[in-house]
């Protein structure tokens, strides 16, 4: 049956099925998707495309734009790297150890997903301001977090943290305990076990989590603008520059920067898909 069905699928658009409603649901899905997502995104690309090449390049390589890329990408990369370390430690703690409140902590990991970005923004700012709960202890050391690039990194670290933890957690659960036990019986040390058994299993997940965290951080707006200070060239992220251009009715300039960000998101999406495919191949290659 399946061979015949595959042949039929190759010959026609879809495989035959006795279930009704394909036309209705498929039509509704594609219509809704086109009207709400694809058409407006096409409008963005068209708007940027209506600029002549010279002014497009001029807009996306202006010193202010370059400064905003440096902050957006630099801080996002740093935040994703911080999460690579701490996200792994948190995932490890939640998977491997039992301690009071573990289930509560596990549920709270998703908080940055559920919490509106404006709320995390004002809350982080007041915690890390010079007179805030944590900021007051950093101030004497000359460390200013709020209204500097450090603050931007802190906000991006918080909002991208769940991506890392939630990607690494299931991978850590997959690590075969009997392999670890066997290695230990054969005299392997803990670090050796970590390097040769645990790390290879969770590496694809860690890279996927890193990319997801980075992709989310690059586009983030709400939580950053409160803590950033928003000085042009210094603490101004690219999404904010887009908003400023829109408020000045410079639609084309905004669209040009938007296309740059879309292109980057697209590359990230591609990277995530490739990483996940690699991870699946690796896992099945290692054998279950």
């Amino acid at each position, binding site marked *: 049956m399946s061979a015949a069905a595959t042949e039929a699928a190759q010959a026609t658009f879809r495989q035959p099925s006795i279930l009704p*409603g394909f036309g209705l649901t498929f039509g509704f899905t594609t219509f809704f998707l086109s009207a709400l997502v694809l058409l407006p995104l096409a409008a963005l690309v068209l708007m940027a495309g209506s600029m002549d090449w010279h002014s497009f390049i001029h807009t996306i390589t202006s010193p202010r734009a370059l400064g905003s890329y440096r902050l957006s990408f630099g801080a996002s990369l740093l935040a994703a790297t911080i999460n690579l370390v701490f996200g792994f430690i948190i995932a490890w703690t939640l998977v491997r150890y039992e301690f009071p409140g573990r289930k509560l902590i596990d549920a709270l990991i998703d908080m940055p997903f559920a919490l509106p970005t404006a709320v995390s923004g*004002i809350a982080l700012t007041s915690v890390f301001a010079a007179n805030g709960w944590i900021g007051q202890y950093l101030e004497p050391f000359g460390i200013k977090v709020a209204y500097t690039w450090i603050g931007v990194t802190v906000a991006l670290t918080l909002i991208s943290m769940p991506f890392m933890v939630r990607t690494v957690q299931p991978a850590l659960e997959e690590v075969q305990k009997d392999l670890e036990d066997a290695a230990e019986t054969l005299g392997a040390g803990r670090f050796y076990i970590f390097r040769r058994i645990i790390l290879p299993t969770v590496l694809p997940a860690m890279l996927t989590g890193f990319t997801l965290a980075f992709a989310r951080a690059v586009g983030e707006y709400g939580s950053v603008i409160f803590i950033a200070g928003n000085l042009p060239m210094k603490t101004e992220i690219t999404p904010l520059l887009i908003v400023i251009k829109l408020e000045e009715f410079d639609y084309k300039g905004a669209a040009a920067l938007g296309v740059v960000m879309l292109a980057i998101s697209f590359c990230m999406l591609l990277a995530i898909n490739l990483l996940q495919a690699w991870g699946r191949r690796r896992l099945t290659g290692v054998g279950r």
Partner: protein
Amino acid sequence: MAGQAITLHDELASRPGHDTWLTRILRRMFILVSLSFLAALLFAPLATVFATALGKGVEAYFASFNDPDTRSAIRLTLTAVAVVVPLNTLFGLAAAWAIGKFEFRGKSFLITLIDLPLAVSPVISGMIYVLMFGLQGWFGAWLQEHDISIIFALPGIILATMFVTFPYVARELIPLMQQLGNDEEEAAITLGANGWTTFFRVTLPKVRWGLVYGIILCNARAMGEFGAVSVVSGHIRGLTNTMPLHIEILYNEYNFVGAFAVASLLTLLAVATLIVKTLIERTGYKRH
């Protein structure tokens, strides 16, 4: 899982020649690092929301909700959500039926397109509608001629919110419907039930937890969306200010009790979302 971890550790500890103090110290260190990281980045900001909101007493907290602008912000957010969530639920169900129940060409491409809004910066999600319907946008002149306002008005807010929450229900339902298979639906159809009966009596009860899961995540994001709505709203006090935008205005006016009071409502919403989500996961419905 956790129980397994405990027995494994006890087993390792009792094994001759194994340095038990090392594993103990490692365990304590990992838990300590995880908790400190989360305390600084997540728990302190959450606590500060309520501490600041209640900082001038309970009366001041409740009085801040008597502000007519705050009330209209709450009303506007609820209105937008009342339109967005049902529409995206309907879309999610249709998309899941078309994609989960049938085999057709280009299916994975369609799934990627549905996920697209998650990869796009919120600022871009708002901007695309400004480029379409804003004054200098593609349809701006035509809309002005016919006296229709979309940008800086409720329709724009609804469109932007719909875009960012577009994939939430569909993402939960598509893998669930694929995994559950078509056997029961095919049996129902063969026994003479029509499509709608099959959907309401067979499919819907099977996927109900996935549906609720998707709806609450969609709802939380819709109520809390800041970036996309900020771009299309125009920030007209009492008219086009949603709750997250109102938080920004109050915060910038140094009305911290007011800002954090509204923020506390959204934080409670996030907490409620996480509780429902955790309860659903306990019924056996798992994300991964």
